[in-house]
């Protein structure tokens, strides 16, 4: 234990900087946090780096983090950041990043997904390589076929939408330079796609295969609402990655397809009308008008999007300089 530079929560944490901050946002299904700490801290001690564990807790986790406070009082390098409101994982991550001063940040879910040795490997890989983000890939997988099938399907869609080559975006265990977490506009459910958002901002992202944890092998089946949310997340991500600066390209494409089809329908009807056929009782007229109206609506929406982008263009830069 002499190797660790001990951090006490009350001992003016701003002055003491460590090499690595491990951020644990406590959200869904947390496991015993003391156990978690004891399991994941040894590889950091072995790595001879100074470190701290930062637990970001929402109000309902009060009793869960109490034992952590006791550990901290005994001199373990633990900090507990308690927020006053339920905020969600993305907000907790950003908040914790703002309160950490280590150059390297590791995010760790409050449940065990990878074996403890992975942390040391991720940090080492980040230190050795040129990359800004090293994300864990649980490999080889040893869990049930149902889990793997879900993961495969998810990444198949993700790869098709974003051309990413990552295999395990959902695994929340990642090591990154602090700057990355501070600069990414994480909110809502997009923290799941942190590696993709980071790559879009110009950070280099790589994947490191790490052994899966025993606890992670249980089969997971979620309610239909969860799957629906993932699909919506993917749609939102696709839009944000490709069209944040050019909403009109997205809405304009949809709108012009709709309006063209609608215009075609109306042209056919007009031709028939001129040839003496009645159209007042043809619901096809309604379809044509509906498509044209929807098309115009989509384009108009895109235009308003462009105005918003244009108004925010000053001061915002879409490029990032190379780190050298």
């Amino acid at each position, binding site marked *: 234990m002499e190797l660790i530079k001990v951090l006490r929560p009350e001992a003016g944490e701003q002055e003491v900087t460590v090499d690595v901050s491990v951020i644990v946002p406590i959200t869904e299904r947390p496991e015993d946090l003391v156990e978690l700490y004891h399991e994941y801290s040894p590889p950091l001690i072995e790595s001879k780096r100074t470190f701290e564990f930062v637990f970001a807790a929402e109000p309902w986790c009060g009793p869960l983090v109490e034992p952590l406070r006791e550990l901290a009082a005994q001199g373990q390098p633990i900090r507990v950041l308690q927020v006053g409101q339920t905020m969600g994982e993305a907000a907790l991550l950003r908040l914790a990043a703002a309160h950490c001063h280590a150059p390297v940040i590791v995010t760790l879910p409050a449940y065990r997904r990878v074996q403890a040795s992975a942390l040391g490997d991720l940090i080492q890989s980040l230190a050795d390589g040129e990359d800004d983000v090293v994300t864990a890939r649980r490999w080889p997988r040893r869990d049930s076929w149902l889990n793997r099938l879900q993961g495969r399907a998810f990444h198949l869609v993700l790869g098709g939408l974003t051309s990413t080559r990552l295999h395990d975006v959902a695994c929340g265990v990642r090591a990154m330079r602090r700057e990355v977490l501070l600069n990414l506009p994480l909110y809502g459910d997009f923290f799941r796609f942190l590696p993709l958002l980071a790559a879009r901002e110009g950070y*280099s992202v790589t994947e490191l295969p790490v052994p899966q944890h025993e606890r992670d092998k249980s089969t997971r089946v979620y309610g239909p609402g969860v799957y629906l949310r993932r699909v919506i997340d993917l749609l939102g991500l696709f839009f944000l990655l490709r069209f944040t600066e050019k909403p009109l*390209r997205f809405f*304009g494409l949809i709108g012009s397809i709709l309006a063209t089809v609608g215009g075609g329908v109306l042209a056919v009807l007009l031709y028939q009308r001129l040839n003496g056929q009645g159209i007042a009782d043809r619901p096809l007229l309604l379809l044509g008008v509906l498509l044209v109206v929807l098309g115009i609506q989509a384009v108009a929406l895109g235009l*308003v999007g462009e*105005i918003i982008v244009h108004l925010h263009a000053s001061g915002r*830069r879409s*490029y990032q300089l190379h780190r050298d």
Partner: protein
Amino acid sequence: MTQTEPHLSVVVPLYNEAASVTPLVEAITAAVEGFTSWELILVDDGSSDDTVALAQAHAAKDGRVRVIRLARNYGQTPAMQAGFDHAQGKVVVSMDGDLQNDPRDIPLLVAKLEEGYDLVAGYRKNRQDKLVTRKIPSWFANRLIQRITRVEIRDNGCSLKAYRRDLLRRVNLYSDMHRFIPAVAAATAGARIAEVPVRHHARQYGTSKYGLSRILKVLGDLLTIKMIRSFRERPLAMMAAGALVAMVFAVASGVAAVVAAQGFTPEKANAVVFPGAAMLWLGLVGYLLMLGLLAEVALWEHRKGEGEQLPLVHEEQI
């Protein structure tokens, strides 16, 4: 490094132009000899070849050459913006890195700028490009851009341009806007624009990074610029104009519905089509008006907050 603020900054975005770098730097250096102080900013847009190494070698030899490296390949507009952001000269000249522009034209552009313009665009006389895939689409695009933006520029695709730095500080480039700098500058910053003919050479090294696919993108961008031009002051009015057209259709459908109802018989009981169409058009009227109001909110918030820059003005001739 030594001089604090050079007179002239030349900005060149480079993407996989390893073969061009050395001749380019030499040609530019020779061309700007006549200026008392200058800098050359080479922006590497995430090249995967030797472009960076070569550019950095030149920078090491000559303190006036600077290299800006982007983290990945972003495209020409962000690369250009990066160069502009780092340019310190009062006058900034942009050009392509493929040697199709001739650096010997730089002094001509700068001289024209100093006659009292904010932006001087080059236009390529005797353009050395393929006719069908480059020159013809470009001719149509330029005519269209002229019509829509009402900025009289013959050759929007020519990157060789000179700007006052004060102007560039007021123009923010994003998406693929580098083609429309004159139009954006005129619309948002009140720039005074001139044109001079420049030389154009056939591509010697490397391959062209453009294709026909960009026509659609250009059309979309054009619509955006048109919009920004008329929309940034009174969006509600523009949406209301669209709503008025929709209203005409709504009324027409309504009249048709009334006419159809005159001869209403139980056999024609399904003749609810015209009233339905009238409702749809009415829905569009309401929708467009609401969007216009929303855009007004966005503008209001923008005008209230900081971040808005006033257009350039000239109290006296320079």
